[in-house]
């Protein structure tokens, strides 16, 4: 009886334990299966789409600001050394696909208000979809203590821009011309860099410009004895245009004047339209020892940022290509024993034939680098500077001619030309001395590639078109009233065409090309790159 009970209980216990074990094993197996599956199973997803819309902003009218007439810091009588006054009368021309409404600025400390030398604002109406091609150009030739030719394109206001030009050493005057064409007050900060680093000075920040106001700021008043200034102009509120007028007086001899437009940093600087004169001819210019050498052809470069930037500078004479220049690396290795330059076959003081070559430089952050291009014989050049990060730069070269009135020296800052859009316009005002003593020469119809570009004999315009891309381009230049001229521009090459004064020209098929206008005359020199049309506001994606 008790055995029976014992067995019954045992049986029951066995059943219970067996049941539990089975349940446990099943659960454990399920858990293991889930754990195993979890390592590779990726379930499908169901997801809504985030609502977003793209919108194209309504196009705004384009504004182009011409900097106004050349200025001097003292009146004719020599009084008021800190007050600017106009020297002569600039000539301004406009060209655009659509109507241009030109108005004078409303206020300026340049003393030009009410005079023909006043800075002008051209408002280009926007019609249709794309940005209209438009251009304004201002030229002025002066011979009144400050001598020379200055050509400046009228530029669009931006909130950040760089000026690579100027010097504040003895006899060198640099005037910063800021103009606020917008409807709101602009607050401008100026960052001034030199060969020794950044220069901080009171008065360079918080410069307030009322709408339609121009302000002339003499850089000499903030930093003296700066050989190579580079200026960054940042505006908040209204956008401004900036330009720099530099004039040189060596002892008592005038050394020229130039008006330089602002540029935007870019990792590729294409600088066409550099006309170098033979060093031997320029050697007659009386350069005092106290002066630095600012008669040679000099490349000034600056890399914004905080890291060293290695750059490659390709010097391309007319007729050669970028590839030709890059193939000849003439970097002077500072560490190499002896003078690498001396070993070169082109030794000697003067090289007669322009040859393409390239050099590699390293830009120190915060410092402006100037590199004298010693071996550029007389000729026309395009310089292409490439780097991994954006930089700014310009090339200064001088010209000398003996005129009836004696030797005449002028210099020009050649600044980089930004890639153009499909179309570009050119307005070409009259080139004339204030006194009209130098006859204006109507430009030739066209010049074939291979023929020599016109020399500095007569006043005139030469347009340089550089193809820094990899595929050949065909640019069509149509001078108003004339048959179109087609320029086949090989990759890396630069072509030219002479343009008549007092006309307009239309460029087509120039997308991605860089172009600069060179204005020349005996002892006169000025370069102005063509501005691409202001970018219409691109479309925007808005999420909500």
């Amino acid at each position, binding site marked *: 009886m008790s055995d029976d009970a014992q067995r019954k209980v045992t049986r029951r216990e066995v059943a219970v334990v067996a049941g539990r074990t089975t349940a446990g094993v099943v659960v454990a197996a399920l858990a293991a299966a889930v754990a195993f599956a*979890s390592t590779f199973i990726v379930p499908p997803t169901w997801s809504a789409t985030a609502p977003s819309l793209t919108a194209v902003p309504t196009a705004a009218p384009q504004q182009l600001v011409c900097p106004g007439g050349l200025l001097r810091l003292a009146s004719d009588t020599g009084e008021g050394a800190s007050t600017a006054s106009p020297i002569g009368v600039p000539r301004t021309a406009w060209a655009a696909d659509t109507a241009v409404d030109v108005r004078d600025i409303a206020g300026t400390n340049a003393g030009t208000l009410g005079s023909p030398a006043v800075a002008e604002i051209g408002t280009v109406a926007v019609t249709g979809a794309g940005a209209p091609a438009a251009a304004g150009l201002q030229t002025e030739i002066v011979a009144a203590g400050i001598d020379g030719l200055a050509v400046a394109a009228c530029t669009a206001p931006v909130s950040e821009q760089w000026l690579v030009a100027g010097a504040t050493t003895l006899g060198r005057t640099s005037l910063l011309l800021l103009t606020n064409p917008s409807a709101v007050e602009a607050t401008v900060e100026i960052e001034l860099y030199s060969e020794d680093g950044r220069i901080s000075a009171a008065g360079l920040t918080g410069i307030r410009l009322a709408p339609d106001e121009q302000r002339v700021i003499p850089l000499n008043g903030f930093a003296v004895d700066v050989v190579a200034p580079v200026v960054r102009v940042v505006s908040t509120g209204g*956008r401004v245009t900036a330009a720099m007028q530099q004039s040189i007086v060596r002892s008592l001899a005038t050394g020229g004047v130039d008006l330089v437009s602002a540029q935007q940093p870019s990792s590729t600087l294409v600088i066409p339209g550099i006309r170098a004169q033979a060093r031997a001819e320029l050697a007659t210019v009386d350069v005092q020892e106290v002066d630095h050498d600012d008669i040679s052809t000099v490349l000034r470069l600056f890399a914004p940022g905080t890291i060293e930037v290695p750059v490659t500078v390709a010097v391309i004479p007319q007729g050669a290509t970028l590839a030709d220049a890059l193939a000849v690396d003439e970097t002077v290795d500072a560490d190499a024993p002896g003078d690498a330059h001396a070993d070169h076959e082109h030794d000697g003081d003067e090289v007669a034939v322009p040859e393409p070559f390239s050099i590699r430089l390293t830009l120190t952050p915060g410092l402006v680098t100037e590199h004298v291009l010693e071996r550029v014989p007389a000729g026309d050049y395009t310089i292409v500077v490439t780097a991994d990060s954006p930089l700014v730069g310009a090339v200064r070269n001088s010209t000398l001619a003996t005129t009836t009135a004696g030797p005449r020296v002028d210099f020009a800052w050649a600044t980089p030309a930004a890639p153009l859009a499909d179309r570009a316009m050119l307005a070409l005002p009259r080139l004339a001395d204030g006194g009209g003593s130098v006859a204006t020469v109507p430009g030739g119809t066209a010049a074939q590639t291979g023929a020599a570009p016109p020399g500095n004999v007569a006043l005139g315009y030469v347009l340089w078109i550089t193809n820094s891309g990899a595929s050949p381009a065909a640019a069509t230049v149509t001078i108003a009233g004339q048959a179109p001229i087609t320029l086949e521009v090989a990759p890396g090459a630069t072509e030219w065409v002479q343009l008549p004064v007092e006309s307009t020209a239309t460029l087509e098929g120039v997308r991605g090309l860089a172009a600069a206008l060179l204005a020349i005359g005996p002892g006169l020199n000025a370069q102005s790159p063509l501005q691409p049309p202001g970018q219409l506001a691109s479309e925007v994606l*808005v999420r909500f």
Partner: protein
Amino acid sequence: MTTVTVVLVARNGAKHLPATLDALAQQTRRPDRILAIDAASSDASLKVLQERLPGVTVVSARRGSLAQVAQSVLNRVPTADETEWYWFLGHDNAPHPRALEALLAAVEVSPSVLVAGPKLMRWDDKTVIHAYGEALTSSGESLQLVVDELDQSQHDLATDVLGVAVPGSLVQAALWHRLGGFDDGLPAIDAGLDFGVRARLTGARVERVPGARVASAGPVEVFGRRRLGAGTRNRLRRSAQLHRRLVYSPGWALPLLWLAVLPVAIGRSLWRLLAKQPSLVPGELGAGLLGIVDGTVLGARGDIARTRRVGWAAIAPFRVTGRDATELKDRAVAVEARTADLPEPIRERAPFFASGGAWAVLIAAVASIVVFGRWIGAPAVAGGALAPLGPIASLWETLGIRARLEDGGFVGTADPFHAVLALLGSATWWSPSLAIVILLIAAMPLAALGAWFAAARLSPTGWGPAVAALGWAIAPPLIAAASDGRVGAILAHVLLPWLVAAVIDARTSWSRAAVAALLFAGVVAGAPVLAPALVLLLVALMIVQPTRIHRLAIIVLPAAVLAAPLVLAQLGRGTPFAALADPGIPVAAETPRMLALLLGSPSAHYLEWQTFVPALAAAFGLPDLGALTGTIVLAIVVAPIGLLAVLACFLRGGTRAIPALVVAAAGLATAVGATVLGVAVTPLGEIATIWPGSGVSLYWLGLLGAAVVALDGLGRWANAPAIVAVLGLVLAVVPLGLAGATGQTAVQPSAGRVLPALVAAEGVTDPGLGTLDITAQGAAEYAVVLQRGAGLTMERITTLETTRTSIEESDRSLVDLVANLVSDSGLDLGAALDEAQVEYVLLRGAGAGTAAYARAVDALAANPDLVSVGLTPLGPLWQHPGATSAAPATEPGPWDTPLGAISAAAQLGVVGVFLLLAVPTVRRRGVRAVRGRDADLTARDAGGAGDADAAAELEEVR
């Protein structure tokens, strides 16, 4: 010569009739006539009557109570003389052989006694008095003078009563006809009492006769019915009482009483809810509604006025007052309760302080302060999914279906979570955001507390509750939720263990069911994604225990009513999954793999182990072993708890682990499901999936539950596994905790503002103030929110808005405005801003450094229609002076649309009812205590397993 007519009414009484007829035949004083009435019986009653009473014509009548049927038949009988008596008998009123003799003796001795009632004895136990005389309380309630008492002749001395029950009563036929018979308005209950009252008002006396015993199978209202629910009985009783009150009242009080009928009914309904008798509520309301349309009142009043000979003072001595009345009422309730709800089982209280509960909570509190202590003292925290809360008025104003200014203005419903927010915020009404800070910091100890009590239900002693409390407090989803500012998920996590405990109890208690329903509403409001899993689990529970369906079913009711407007709106929009979206600001995160979820990580980074291990290796100069090492380490540290959970099935009592593991599976499935549903749009225009953390919480709950069972089953071998498991869980959250302690959380102390101080201050007084809130992204992309007033504070962020993916016309104009604002534009922006009613433009500093930001700053600064206000901590701000603000969203308010009013009323009503049900009241327990059977119950309960399973078992025994 006295003649007695037996008025025998049979209604479905074939079972009782033979005995009754036998007893009638054995009377020592044979009745002179028998008037047999069949009240439309559906059984063999008619046949029995016809067979057993061959010489008697059986009258057929319509169905009704004894009084009703007798009334309908006797009304047709011509008025009788004073020597004729009616003896009313139902089919179950088998009289004692000497009953009629005794009754007649009584009326013959005293000529003024015109109504005599016998002792009604229980049919099944003839020694127990079922009823013996009725009376009124001072307020007019009717009372049984005797209810189910053993007959020890204790009531034999007092014979004068106010009334007697109709069954078995002997009434002088002349009086009966003079009074117009029984009152039509009292079909079942109180007919006899009322007749007695009216008889006494004519000067007659009513007596109960101790020597006359008549059987009774049940109360008068059950006459002829198989059974009668407590609710119906209560309705009948209330109806009768209302009728009598209206009939007996003085004429001047009648209108007032009539007007008070419905309010009183509603008040009594609420009181019934408070008393946890929800089944009586329909009866109360029904009686009230019937009472106001009671057409028999005036007739009855006329009858009384016609027949009354003496004043109402004649009744007064028979009213039962004071303690006697209370005692009688309590007794009636106690007797009735025997057939009503099962009592709440009295459980063994697990010793919270003695067995480590307090320690667990304390440790959780310390851990919380270590991890989130930086938030202490902050007036608000914000970041991640959390925005600061607006002022208290705003919290309540935004509830319901109403016009909203956000999103270009729309009419839509708030989330259920906003009701919770309003309640939370009201706790610190002077600064509602403070409540969120407190909740975030207190979440861990609160979680520990809830988990401890829930685990103590499973395993009252040993390691289980402590392990559960700690494991729940430092559960990865809780810490992650707090770090990310997911208040809803935190709330759900804290409430889940309480919900489990309440659901276990809900099977046997209405009150607990209501508590569970409110907790369920809270959990689902906080983490809507848990709703499908929880509902399925409830359904599974109903299938397992079908007898508890009614109490389990109501658990989903408040949540359903609260969520209905949102769910309907989302269904109407064709985005059903969006109804599951997390409340608050959507946050886009990398989707965690299933393995991460399995290891308890709601994020894709395996609780940050994937970055923690390499960082640790780097700190000690060890080779970088890669992110996979982090996964492996996490898998190792959470393995013990997983193994314990599986082990539970092998151990004694392991069946209790199965539900826990089912919960875990449901949680894991929810977590995986959440990761695949991208429903909401972040303020930056990305798609955010539902947060899987809430699912992980549920999964964790199941794991811990199973682990508790395992520890219980391990008994004295539980120490080492428990310690290893807890250590593993602590280790698992070390990287998360370190991130919190070092401030690397999305949530940061905040000033409690969404917009710059200037705008926020202006927005408080001007709710329509428009601020364009722009965040620049990439080259030319902008995320835009048109803020109104003080900005999108938490209560104004609705999932209806965050899950909207359709593009409306208002969006197009907004997009155009933004595109032109951030561009050099030729558009008249002043007019556009005026039209959009935008006064401020905020460019978030978060986008600084992008090309889009530079473009926007450039364009905004150059805009002549905007004045720069300055650089705020949030980014540069511009003002468009003179812009008009949008009209405040007052129309329509929550009560102004039909749908809004209906849903608001339903929500308030349902939540109110459940609150009343849930509020703990002690009344019933006090009554119960006097009952012997309950005492037995308690003793067995305490000695047994002490949980609801035992109680359920007992209920079945019963």
